[in-house]
């Protein structure tokens, strides 16, 4: 499988400045790409475009040469930066966890999700605990690419390591391509096999692609 950002440009309306300009890169299933760049360079916007939440102003996102499906389960899934906004506050955790597939007990154990948490409201869990649910619920069999937008920023270092270990294991086992958005260069070098830097927009040069 291949996820291709084909000459993507984005701005919010006709008068606003460009957030992204002519971004090109390709993610293969075996790839683990880090998307790095300072704040405000459009990393989160690009993640949203790649996973179909936003429509690019120009260019397109191609999955195996076709546009992302509008209906049904999207094979490109995104995990948000703020888990507390990504779960329904009126649902107990087990409903959120099982929203699109039924993760087995093994996965829950290795994610460090405790059984007792399933009976709680989201307001009774911490950000890090919630983030595990958000990751677990999109690791379903239909997910082909996973966009991780700063997913481990709110976790302590040990949990970060655990979660990344697991995400890497699962992505390898199921052949899921990863796009990792992060500020943390050490993490990017550890987790990913390619790094894509978003250029400053005023320069408007085509996307650099550097392999590590």
């Amino acid at each position: 499988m291949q996820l291709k950002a084909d000459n993507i440009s984005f701005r919010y309306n006709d008068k606003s400045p460009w957030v992204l300009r002519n971004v090109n890169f390709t993610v293969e299933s075996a790839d683990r790409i880090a998307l790095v760049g300072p704040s405000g360079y459009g990393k989160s916007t690009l993640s949203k475009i790649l996973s179909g939440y936003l429509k690019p102003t120009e260019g397109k996102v191609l999955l195996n040469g076709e546009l992302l499906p509008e209906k049904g389960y999207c094979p490109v899934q995104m995990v948000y930066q703020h888990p507390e906004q990504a779960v329904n506050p009126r649902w107990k955790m087990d409903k959120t966890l099982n929203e699109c597939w039924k993760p087995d007990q093994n996965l829950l154990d290795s994610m460090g999700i405790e059984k007792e948490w399933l009976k709680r409201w989201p307001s009774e869990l911490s950000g890090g605990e919630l983030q595990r649910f958000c990751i677990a619920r999109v690791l379903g069999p239909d997910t082909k690419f996973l966009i991780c937008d700063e997913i481990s920023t709110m976790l302590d270092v040990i949990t970060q390591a655990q979660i990344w270990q697991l995400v890497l294991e699962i992505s390898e086992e199921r052949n899921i391509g990863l796009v990792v958005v992060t500020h943390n260069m050490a993490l990017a070098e550890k987790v990913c096999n390619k790094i894509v830097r978003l250029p400053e927009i005023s320069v408007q040069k085509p996307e650099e692609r550097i392999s590590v």
Partner: protein
Amino acid sequence: MHNDSIFAAGSPRLKSSGINTRKKMIIYITAACVYLIAVLIAGLVMNPDLYGVHYENKFLTPSFSHPFGTDFMGRDMFWRSIKGLSNSILVGLAASAVSSVIALIFGVAAAVAGGKTDKIITWLVDCCMGMPHIVLLLLISYMMGRGGFGVAFAVAVTHWPELTRLVRAEVLQVKNAQYVQAAVKMGKSKTRIAKEHIIPHVLPVYLIGLVLLFPHAIMHEASLTFLGFGFSASTPAIGGILSEAMKHIVTGKWWLCLFPGLILLVAVMLFDVIGDKLKMLLNPGSGNQ
């Protein structure tokens, strides 16, 4: 083991002994509902002779046979007040039913359609909220020929703006929430998202708004009648009773305004209590207390 689970195990548990807040609230709500329904039904099935004219009993002070005293025509104020409050609750019911449906339709339409529809509805809301409510009520009530129908109509069609605003804001907020967007990407259908995410989020706000609309409607009916634009003098109504009592208060007939005023106040406050407690019960943040 990681740190989080250690903290989780040490977190304080809520005490399960005695009556918890939730139960206490349910008791409050039930008591308030029972009182209001009892007044409503008593008023509906009451024999009009109970507050009939008895000139021989003019201006009796409160006693066991006439708990609220009698007025200048010898009518028993207790039964008259109950009947009047019952009428007020009826008007409140009509107002809530009509206004909340208008609010729901407008609010959802504004949030879902957006663009011009949203602008027009928001403008209408601003218009209605910018005008003094009582003036609008007077005009509509007068136009509709005063009396019971006039006041009910006026109160019913003027209480939607606040609720419309509330419903619109809630629908907009939940529609753009990350978890709803994520559900779309997980391939959930529109009806399923509406049923599982949006309605459970908007319904409590709507219900609370509906309950809190009641005291407003009742107070406005009473004010209209007090000013002489509402129920006719022959129909018992708290507003009418109070405006009659104004004439006699200088001669020391205190019971004519005290008791009817009190039961109106209690009814209004009870609706407020019900609304507030419902809010706490339905809010996930405080729902577990």
